[in-house]
């Protein structure tokens, strides 16, 4: 029983932390620059492909991960300088249209370059088995993912809460005009935040590659979850993104694990097997609706 609870808690944590990597970038771009970036998921996809390609070329997962993340950051820089800079002053509809176009373009580009079939990555051989501690088993690779996620969360906390740049970012999220009026180079700040967000996307894509599949369209499904996270957490808030990610990760994992069993106890087996998975997949949206009902601004609104 302890094994089960602990294992599911770690699963929820692992899923939540990966969501956090995506949501952190998304919430900053949305909160500070007031820009809806639907193509955030595409950066995640492109990042995963670049990591996969680099890992195969270098025959080392870790070199591949570093190269892929750096390359995606560079791509983020180019995108920010050429496209997004034009979009900030436009209204949300133009941003949605432009970034949606970006999704279509990147999906087709990836299909052209890497083909329509998914790339199935393998984790590094040393991490492909379980880790055993006193009778408790957990996949070693997932532990590494958790460690990476926690490290990034810690780093982000230090950056945002303790550094001068972080102070500007928080100020920008809370009140953009006032920040500009105080003489902060908001444009440079935007570029930095965007590039950082792109790098986090690639990190998440690369780390999740061996657990999922690197494939066209992988960004869209996860983007929806990332939006749920930032809406729950409060747009523009890193702390909100972290808490929101962990809530969504845990609820999703527990829903999948517990709901079918619980339903089976009360309903006939046939109905339970149909209803269970369906309910589990809408659970996080129910959660989002519930939180929005009581806290329309999310749990930690940046513009309080």
């Amino acid at each position, binding site marked *: *029983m302890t*094994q*089960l609870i602990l*294992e*599911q808690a770690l*699963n929820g944590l*692992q*899923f939540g932390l990966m969501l956090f990597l995506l949501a952190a970038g998304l919430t900053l771009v949305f909160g500070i620059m007031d820009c809806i970036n639907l193509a955030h998921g595409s950066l995640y996809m492109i990042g995963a492909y670049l990591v996969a390609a680099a890992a195969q070329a270098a025959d080392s997962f870790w070199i591949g991960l570093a190269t892929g993340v750096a390359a995606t950051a560079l791509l983020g820089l180019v995108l920010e300088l050429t496209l997004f800079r034009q979009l900030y002053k436009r209204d949300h509809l133009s941003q949605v249209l432009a970034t949606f176009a970006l999704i279509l373009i990147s999906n087709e580009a990836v*299909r052209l370059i890497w083909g*329509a*079939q*998914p790339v*199935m990555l*393998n*984790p590094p051989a040393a991490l*492909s*088995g*379980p880790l*055993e501690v006193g009778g408790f*088993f*957990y*996949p*070693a*690779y*997932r532990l590494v993912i958790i460690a990476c996620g926690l490290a990034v969360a810690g780093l982000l906390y230090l950056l945002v809460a303790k550094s001068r740049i972080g102070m500007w970012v928080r100020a920008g999220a809370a009140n953009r005009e006032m920040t500009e009026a105080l003489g902060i180079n908001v444009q440079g700040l935007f570029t930095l935040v965007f590039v950082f967000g792109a790098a986090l996307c690639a990190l998440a894509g690369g780390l999740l590659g*061996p*657990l*999922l*599949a690197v*494939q*066209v*369209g992988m960004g869209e499904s996860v983007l929806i979850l990332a939006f749920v996270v930032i809406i729950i957490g409060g747009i523009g808030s890193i702390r909100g993104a972290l808490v929101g990610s962990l809530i969504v990760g845990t609820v999703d*994992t*527990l829903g*999948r*694990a517990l709901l*079918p*069993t619980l339903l089976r106890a009360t309903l006939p*087996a046939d109905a339970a*097997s*149909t209803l*269970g*998975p*369906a309910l589990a*997949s809408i659970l996080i949206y129910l959660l989002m609706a519930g939180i929005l009902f009581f806290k329309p601004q999310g749990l930690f609104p940046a513009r309080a």
Partner: protein
Amino acid sequence: MSLRLTALAAALMLAALAHAADKIKVGLVSTLSGPGAGLGVDIRDGFTLAMKRLDGKLGDLPAEVIIADDQQSPDVAKQIVDKFLKKDKVDLMTGIVFSNLMLAVGPSIFENRTFYISANAGPSQYAGEQCNPYFFNVAWQNDNLHEAVGKYVQDKGFKNVVIVTPNYPGGKDAVSGFKRYYKGKVAEEVYTKLGQLDYAAELAQIRSLKPDALFFFLPGGMGINFVKQFVAAGLSRDTQLFAPGFSADEDVIKAVGAPMMGMFNSSHWAHDMENVENKRFVADFEKEYARLPSLYASQGYDAALMMDAAVRDVKGKLADKAALQKALEAKRFKSVRGDFKFNTNHYPVQNYYLRAIGKDAQGRVTNKTMGTIFTNHADAYVSQCKMK
């Protein structure tokens, strides 16, 4: 009403003419992108290889094969099928991998009186009450491979089994097939989302149930990830894995590798079968695509051969639907799986074999045929089919 009358009149006129066509069009719609792509690609490659062998002709008629990707989406599949039927006016169709897509597009194909030769999807619905003269399955009924594993697991004396399948019609068929022959305790039936790739939550649950055997039906990328994560979680030490051939063929083996060794699975075909047709097929396939064929490839190959024989039989008179149906039912082609015949519901009656994954003479990890589980096995739904 007037539309139906027109259609009827047109059909009558065509039947009256019933002249030999001078060419033939085949619509092949399959899953060629996403996690299920491995299956569709193999069906397509098997079909294409057979067309090459037949010099691009079906029954001596020059054939045009139109290939489209359904993206594993019922909506996309419907659009493609409508285009095939109305714009391209195809004579024969094949290719669909997933049963939920098959069930979505079936009605419009049958209404259009176009013969569909399924090279994979074999839903129980079309084998039983909804059986249709225009539907043939050259592979199997969905339940069959699962029944074979159920029988083997039962015979080997396993007592506590967990079943994992996606929550879709093919998954439901898998569970009923397995449980038709496995009579022991089922600790849990786990239904996952179709296309799910991360199984952490399910694997934790399975660990807590301590099953002695696990039966999973997760075709394509789903199965690849499941086996990898099953091994990574350390579950392979205490739990024996069983799967139908779908989850243990070349596409999965290639991606997972050595951890698959020792896994038992069932199939109606294997690449090491000793018959002339199969030897030629496997050798040609390896030469053409530089990989071993999977059962999906064999099914695509058989579908083309089946079309070829039937079209030759009716001497190219494709408009004579009754004659074409008889010709298809007669099954005059030589299948790579050896001999089989069609039941009254247009599904095969055939043998099912046990395969085990191990290293072959050349050191490749691949399937080896171990023995026969069922001989001349028919599906369980045929009695409900009243073929009109």
